[in-house]
């Protein structure tokens, strides 16, 4: 797969970005050994213990930067899922009746252990996912700890969260998470669920199970009661068995819109509470009075952060026509300095694409962009021989009708569209089935507010992009899903706020 891609990439016309430099950075690799011992095979984590699967099927997780197999892990069966849900159910009575201040102690302890083991977790995440160590070290891990700290603080204050007195937990939460931020998505799901007194069964993505399994060790280290957190690995079949399980009270899913849609259908008519965080096709809107240098950084951070594997990525650049040339020149110059390569090198900006399947999808959509008449540009940069890689890519001359303007690419590919007036910017930005995030770049404060009121997106960033904080709710409009994670709002999906017993 990678080889095929390399060939098509090589055929692309690329323009020289930067002459070979005087000041070349020597390799600065983080040690893979810092990831700690990776077992050759993993079972599930159920009832506080690592257990073998009832089935015999095993999946493999590979390092996407080298294509080497890192470990085998179990394909969770319906029976495995049932055991995990039973363990969670059994643990629920004691866990939910603990005083909030006691639950908080466990969460604080988990947060501190995450901080203490952050280097190990950052390296492991980078190896399993392909994302650069600079990001796992400076973004993922600090946010993971911050989420646990933040929700630990809520555990004994739920009476004052605005959901009436004594809001009750739901029960067993089934949580299915994606591969783009494996440990961070786990934190977004597990922290509020535990703070509110629920117990969880979590299924990590089949390409990135390792940090979730390492998190299971952290739960043990923190002395978390058995069964409060259970982790069942496997692919979509395991996920479907988990969300379908009759003894689950709450389903939380982050992933693609098609899967989210099928879960919504599956749950229709049941009493399970559902929150979905799905795809996006965010508009990053740059006005001619924007702080240009910072807008360029924001555009780069919006689409090339985490190889573009971000549901809220700023994948559509809407630029005001009067500043288009100036901005695109600056953007191309900046893209020429992006460093693509070994995720464990501390100076790498863009790492590996997470899987062969995802690389195929990005390659296919980029090809469609060219076929439909958009102009493709990528800086010249050498890609490693093995592994899954894609150059940071820019499409100009994109219209609203092009597939690359409508479909989520989930890769380092930016589609550039233009607008003339604020009203046109709003109209184009909203003209998508998604509505997860948007960005506005202007020095005019009143215009930021005017735009933010009209953009149908769950998060609107002004003069920044892809900034996350546990105190801030995150979630979508339209086909980007429903429910909010983060902040006080993130408690609600895990609480019974309809029938309050006083």
């Amino acid at each position: 797969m990678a080889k095929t891609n390399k060939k098509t990439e090589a055929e692309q016309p690329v323009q020289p970005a930067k002459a070979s430099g005087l000041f070349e950075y020597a390799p600065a690799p983080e040690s893979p050994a810092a990831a700690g011992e990776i077992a050759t095979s993993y079972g599930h984590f159920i009832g506080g213990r690592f257990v073998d699967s009832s089935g015999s099927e095993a999946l493999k997780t590979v390092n996407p930067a080298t294509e080497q197999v890192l470990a085998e892990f179990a394909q969770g069966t319906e029976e495995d899922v049932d055991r995990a849900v039973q363990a969670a159910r059994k643990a629920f009575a004691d866990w939910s009746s603990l005083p909030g201040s006691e639950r908080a102690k466990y969460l604080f302890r988990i947060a501190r252990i995450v901080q203490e083991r952050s280097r190990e977790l950052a390296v492991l995440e980078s190896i399993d996912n392909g994302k650069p160590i600079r990001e796992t070290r400076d973004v993922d891990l600090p946010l993971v700890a911050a989420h646990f700290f933040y929700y630990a603080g809520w555990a004994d204050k739920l009476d004052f969260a605005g959901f009436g007195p004594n809001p009750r937990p739901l029960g067993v939460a089934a949580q299915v998470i994606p591969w783009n931020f494996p440990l961070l998505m786990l934190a977004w799901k597990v922290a509020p669920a535990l703070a509110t007194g629920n117990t969880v069964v979590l299924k990590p993505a089949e390409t990135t199970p390792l940090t979730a399994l390492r998190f299971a060790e952290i739960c043990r280290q923190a002395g978390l009661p058995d069964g409060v957190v259970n982790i069942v690995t496997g692919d979509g079949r395991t996920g479907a068995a988990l969300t379908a399980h009759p003894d689950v009270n709450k389903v939380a899913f982050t992933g693609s819109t098609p899967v989210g849609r099928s879960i919504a259908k599956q749950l229709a008519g049941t009493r399970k509470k559902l929150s979905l965080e799905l795809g996006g096709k965010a508009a990053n809107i740059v006005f001619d009075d924007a702080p240009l240098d910072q807008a360029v950084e924001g555009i780069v951070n919006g689409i090339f952060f985490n190889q573009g594997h971000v549901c809220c990525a700023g994948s559509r650049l809407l630029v005001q026509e009067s500043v288009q040339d100036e901005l695109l020149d600056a953007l191309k110059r900046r893209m020429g300095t992006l460093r693509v390569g070994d995720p464990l090198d501390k100076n790498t900006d863009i790492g590996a694409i997470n899987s062969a399947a995802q690389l195929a999808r990005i390659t296919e959509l980029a090809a469609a962009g060219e076929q439909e008449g958009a102009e493709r540009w990528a800086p010249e940069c050498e890609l490693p021989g093995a592994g899954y890689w894609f150059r940071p890519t820019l499409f100009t001359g994109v219209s609203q009708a092009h597939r690359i303007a409508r479909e989520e690419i989930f890769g380092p590919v930016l589609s550039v569209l233009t607008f003339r007036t604020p009203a046109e910017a709003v109209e184009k930005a909203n003209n998508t089935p998604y509505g997860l995030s948007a960005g506005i770049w202007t020095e005019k404060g009143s215009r930021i507010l005017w735009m933010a009121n009209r953009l149908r997106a769950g998060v609107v960033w002004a003069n920044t992009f892809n900034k996350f904080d546990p105190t801030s709710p995150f979630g979508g409009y339209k086909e980007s899903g429903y429910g909010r994670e983060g902040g006080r709002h993130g408690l609600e999906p895990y609480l019974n706020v309809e029938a309050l017993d006083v």
Partner: protein
Amino acid sequence: MSTLAANAPGATGGGLADVAASEATLRRFLHGLPGVDQVGLESRAATLGTRSIKTTAKAFAIDLAISMIDLTTLEGADTVGKVRSLCAKGLSPDPSDRTAPQVAAICVYPDMVATAKDALRGSGIQVASVATAFPSGRAGMPVKLADTAEAVAAGADEIDMVIDRGAFLSGRYLEVFEEIRAVKEACRRPDGSAAHLKVIFETGELQTYDNVRRASWLTMIAGADFIKTSTGKVAVNATPPVTLLMLEAVRDFRAATGTQVGVKPAGGIRTTKDAMKYLVMVNETLGDDWLSPHWFRFGASSLLNDLLMQRQKLRTGRYSGPDYVTVD
């Protein structure tokens, strides 16, 4: 940014000659420059600060940084002896290792220029002199010009002038502009050559990043050869974000006019780690064209010894400590 020049009021064909035709045109131009977002600028500078510079890259960067230093003494207590000793240090920074490069310049007060010039004769090291009632700049124009002329006459290769921050902050941009023009004129020597003019903003007093961008353009249009952050005499001196912003300004100015201008952060840069961060900013913002003492300088005094200690460590594998570098 070619359109930037084209959008400039009164600009014709990429030239900026008419920008300073009047107070109004100059103000319109400076206030028409793109704004600077503080959070974004600071976060970009911080991200560049996380680059990991190791082994061969570090060795290259240390030698480059040494060769970019304007080794400085600007004390009331300066004496001929002190200046001579500093010059000796600049000529041969590490007596135990003659492969260590020379510094770029020795920076002194005007009355020490002749001493420094004499001590550095034939070495290629420049003599830079502060002037224009450094550091406050609070003197009349005749005094500032006389200060400059005296330094140039004594043999200064470079003049580090300060702008009138009072005039700048009260919006009298044309006054600042004309002062720079006049000092530039005073840098001329009888033989027709001229001392290089470095213009100090004192960014710690200008306070906002928008002011720094405006000061950069004003100064470059007025004909500065270098733009420099600080005197080293106020509470806040060079910072990575301010320097990054000035690097962006010289990049955009060259794109608009074809004229290349140098950048000199000064004050508060004390460690090798700091210097590496600045060089990474130059590398990733401007590239090779500015990676030389001709276009980038560090105004510093204590930085040199830290660079030398790190250089010794790279060479020997051992960190030998401050008694193995000379104190001057």
